[in-house]
């Protein structure tokens, strides 16, 4: 499978990758993987950023539509980049394990989108939801909804998947129904 990004910053709990081309990041809340030696690490995309490739050069407003702008300033395609950040949720040596690997993915390793079969395996484990709920990021509820939506799609909109996920999430939210409804309203 073709890669969609390359790891640029990596740590035990998360990594940031540069998308192969501009504006071509995997979706927010989607499941991705990266293989370093024997271990494949899995994660959820929690942030997408597009900006200048050079810290000293700021993008400026040209006052033109995207199509026209890229025709007139074709170099911009090489001066801008899209990056995405991923929360690590589990790894795989022989089978999927819903906890963090011993070490972070290697820098410059390639990132790929998970197949539906892999997403089904990850979401059956459910522990990824705990990682997302405990993560210290600003848009948790949206991220949880989006990742459940990705899982639901991979499970062919299985009702059982939704019930099982809901039952797992509610105690993690300390039975906060407002929060729970907030998350699941965006899933459907």
């Amino acid at each position, binding site marked *: 499978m073709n890669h969609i990004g390359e790891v640029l910053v990596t740590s035990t709990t998360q990594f940031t990758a540069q998308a192969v081309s501009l504006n071509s990041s995997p979706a927010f809340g989607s499941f991705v993987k990266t293989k370093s030696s024997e271990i494949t690490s899995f994660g959820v995309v929690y942030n997408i950023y597009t900006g200048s490739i050079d810290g000293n050069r700021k993008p400026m407003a040209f006052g033109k539509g995207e199509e026209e702008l890229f025709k*007139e300033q*074709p170099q911009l395609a*090489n001066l801008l980049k899209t990056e995405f950040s991923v929360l690590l949720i589990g790894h795989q040596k022989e089978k999927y394990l819903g906890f963090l690997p011993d070490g972070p993915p290697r820098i410059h390793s390639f990132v790929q989108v998970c197949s539906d079969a892999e997403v089904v395996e990850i979401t059956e484990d459910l522990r990824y939801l705990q990682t997302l709920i405990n993560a210290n990021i600003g848009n948790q509820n949206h991220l949880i909804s989006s990742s459940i939506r990705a899982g639901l799609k991979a499970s062919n909109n299985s009702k059982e998947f939704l019930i099982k996920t809901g039952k797992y999430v509610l105690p993690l939210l300390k039975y906060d129904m407002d929060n729970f409804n907030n998350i699941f309203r965006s899933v459907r």
Partner: protein
Amino acid sequence: MLDLHKIIDQIGSMSTKRIEGYKEIRKRLSLAQKLLSDESFSFDILALKRERAKTSWLVAEPTEGFKTYTLPRLPAVFQVLAVDGSQIVPDHHEIALCYLINIGSVLLTYGKRLPPVMESHPTLFYSDEDLYFEYQGQKMLIQGELFALKRAIAEANRLSKLVREIDETYPAISLCDGTLIQWNLESRGSQRESWKDNLLDTFLGSLEECRLANTPVAGYISGSRSTDVVNLLRLGLCPEFTPNCDKCHYGINPPCKEIEGNTDVLLFKNLQLGERTSVFFSKSKVLEKYGEHKIGFFYLNVGTEIVRVEAPAWVLGQEKSLNLLHSIMFDQAQKGFGYPVVLSEAHELAVIKGTDRQLFFDILTQHYVQKGIPAELSSKSLSKRRPMV
């Protein structure tokens, strides 16, 4: 350490002196501009006088009377290629004697969504042939103007490689930053001559590659201070039919002095937006060796300034390539807000920042240490890095 307090008075005197000179030049400028449209100022006589004249200054060779040309239409799809170079110069005080030339190149396609090609190609030079030349029996380190030449050649080489890769379906031009006239190859009578001839041959070979690839090549000169055309007008003002500056009998205030001090850019400052002047050829001595690549130029109003655009005769002699050059140069400057986009991007790719230079020498040191090669920084270099109090 520079004590700015001690220099402020000198800066004051300098600016006062400059403003006086500037006012004087302004007075002379209006006369020079009048001459451009003076019908009694016959082109034929001017051209003949130029041929016969003996001057110490460079005088432009006109191809026609003083005309201006409006902006031609841009092709719907076209490509622009540019190269620029940067360097780490050889330094006796560093860990090893070597130098690095980094060439940035950019190929952009307009009117069709094709990916830009933006690359940089650094090359390290460390052999004796690259570092030294023989001068009066002595081994001399390549520095100054010879180093600048070496870089210009590296740029031209890269350009000639890239023009071969351009898709011939669309019209294209290739651009260099600065002049195409390698005037510093002019000086004669030294043992460096064969070395210089080799450099010139390589440079001309690159221009030939562009010609074979049917891609006009040009040099873009921002902030030009050339006076070739002003000098031509000065000849016009000379009452002699065969001006000979060495035997001038008009004393310290010859008639040609009336417009002296002006630059061509000032002379043509009334060009309308997008307009260019007619084509002139440079009479630099080095161009005698250029053959059909003899360099000519025109001035162009790109909005933010009047720029000088230089190109070989095979480009300027054909209406099609001349118009292509005119329209693309203007368009590039508009897209780059005053300076061609391709050139500024090529520069960005070529530039070697202070931190990169430091990193380069750090890596070099690391390799020397790993391989057990004795390498020492000079005391001067060490003292600069760790100044004492």
